[in-house]
């Protein structure tokens, strides 16, 4: 029976892609239609970012631009000093992502694998960082950071969001580590592996897919944060991209095509970042299997 299963399986793998049924195609088509719905706002954005205001007014939001023009883009670029905002966003989000992943990994390893007593309550306490409404933290944090002189400094953002993001990371990882097969760990301990070896040789490789997802999430979430950066970074030179874009919507003088262009240019960095890490996410497939 085992041999039979094996050969059937091999045959299946060999046939592989050719073995598509009508149902498979139906699923694919359904997914593509759904995907188009998801992308619709982006398409609308793309259609209008390169139009002139005059063309937008005369032919509406759905017409194709007759010729490319970059007025809206240039206006936004100069006005908010885009490269400066880009750099602010990149280094704060990047640093937060890396620090938070490291912090949550150690937290979760201690809690999940170590199976500390009352670990649920510790996780809950850490999760408080995620549970508190940000507007409730705004006043106290504002006063505290002012006292230590970090108000209006991007470092305040780095510190606050490393704590907030690692709270989520600790919860996710300790849930995953909690389901970790004990047999492997016990075998490793019997073989004389230290906790550090277990961590670097077993736990880390297996949780790699989850870790890379966390890294991507933390970067994007921090990048997209709005309320706390808006309150903390009052200086134009320390602001991040989302704040710069949001300040446009209050500006009545801004025309729609400029807003479309600004939105478009502001998502390019995260898009590039995601596409780079997309490969890392896929690579997790081979390293992730528990054998």
């Amino acid at each position, binding site marked *: 029976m085992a041999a039979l299963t094996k050969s059937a399986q091999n045959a299946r793998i060999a046939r592989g892609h050719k073995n598509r049924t009508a149902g498979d195609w139906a*699923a694919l088509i359904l997914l593509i239609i759904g995907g188009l719905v998801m992308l619709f706002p982006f398409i609308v954005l793309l259609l209008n970012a390169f139009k002139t205001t005059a063309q937008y007014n005369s032919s509406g939001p759905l017409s194709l631009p007759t010729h490319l023009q970059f007025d809206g883009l240039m206006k936004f670029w100069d006005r908010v000093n885009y490269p400066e905002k880009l750099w602010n966003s990149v280094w704060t989000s990047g640093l937060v992502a890396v620090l938070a992943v490291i912090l949550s990994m150690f937290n979760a390893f201690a809690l999940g694998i170590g199976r500390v007593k009352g670990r649920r309550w510790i996780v809950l306490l850490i999760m408080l960082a995620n549970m508190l409404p940000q507007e409730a933290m705004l006043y106290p944090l504002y006063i505290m950071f002012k006292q230590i002189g970090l108000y209006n400094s991007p470092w305040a953002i780095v510190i606050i969001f490393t704590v907030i993001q690692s709270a989520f990371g600790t919860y996710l990882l300790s849930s995953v580590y909690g389901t970790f097969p004990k047999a492997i760990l016990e075998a490793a301990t019997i073989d004389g592996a230290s906790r550090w070896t277990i961590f670097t040789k077993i736990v880390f490789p297996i949780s790699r897919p989850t870790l890379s997802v966390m890294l991507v999430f933390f970067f994007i979430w921090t990048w997209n944060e709005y309320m706390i950066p808006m309150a903390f970074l009052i200086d134009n030179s320390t602001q991040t991209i989302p704040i710069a874009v949001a300040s446009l919507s209050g500006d009545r003088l801004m025309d729609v095509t400029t807003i479309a262009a600004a939105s478009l240019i502001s998502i390019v960095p995260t898009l590039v970042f995601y596409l780079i890490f997309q490969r890392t996410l896929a690579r997790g497939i081979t390293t992730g299997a528990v054998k």
Partner: protein
Amino acid sequence: MLMWIIIIPACWNIYLSFTDYRGIKPPVWSGLKNWAKLMSDVTFWVSFRNSIWMIIAMVIVPILIGLVLSSLMFDVVQKRFGAKAASTMRAIYYFPQLLPISVAALVMGWIFRPENGALNAVLKAVGLGNLQHDWLGKPDTALIFLMLIMIWIQIGYPLVIFMSGLQRVDPELYEAASLDGANWWQRFLAITLPSIRPEIFVVALTCTIAALKVFGPVYMLTRGGPGTSTIVPSYYSYTQFFQSQQVGYGAAISTALTIVVVIVSIVFTTVQEKTAKEDEE
């Protein structure tokens, strides 16, 4: 560090909820006054009723869709059409998550706006001009359209987490199951669901918390209006904090919200722990 960033603000906030504080003069102890006012405040209860709609839009619908999508992508697309097709699909569905809320709100607000918005333009183009509407500006459609926007934003999150969870699953399980004649739905129930249970819990809890605390989209799209039709607790306390300068009352609202969130989290993790234990036995 955690103490410093989280615990102190939390305690501070609880303290303020028992005071009369306008942001300028030091807080004056006022006992339960804010809390009594809260209990009889219609707007407060409306904001929590809207929270339930937000949970439907940000937790229940995205998780259900995310489960089906992720297992379709993992089980069908990846196997039959290759890993590249699957990861492209995943990127497309994740796309709205990449947008900063400010940009997503800007674009959506503009698609749904009454004059020359994209949705109304589409309706006009296909001859349904009389269906044109101020989608986010009228009480009858504001909430439902806010919910649709939230679903659109949220779907990518469970999808990506579920797919990363599925990567831990041994592919031979699926092979064995389909050799035994299990169809897609049976494989979904027997393999997909149980193996990504930790992820489902994590997504459900974090999304519920996010839904209870939701602020950015409401602030940028509808400002809680028209009237109070889309008001949520977070936004309500924000207006008390920063617009009416009723800091004490705002603190009471956000403390109430925190309490609800904490209770929900405790319930969630209790259930999660229980199912994890049953699993081990």
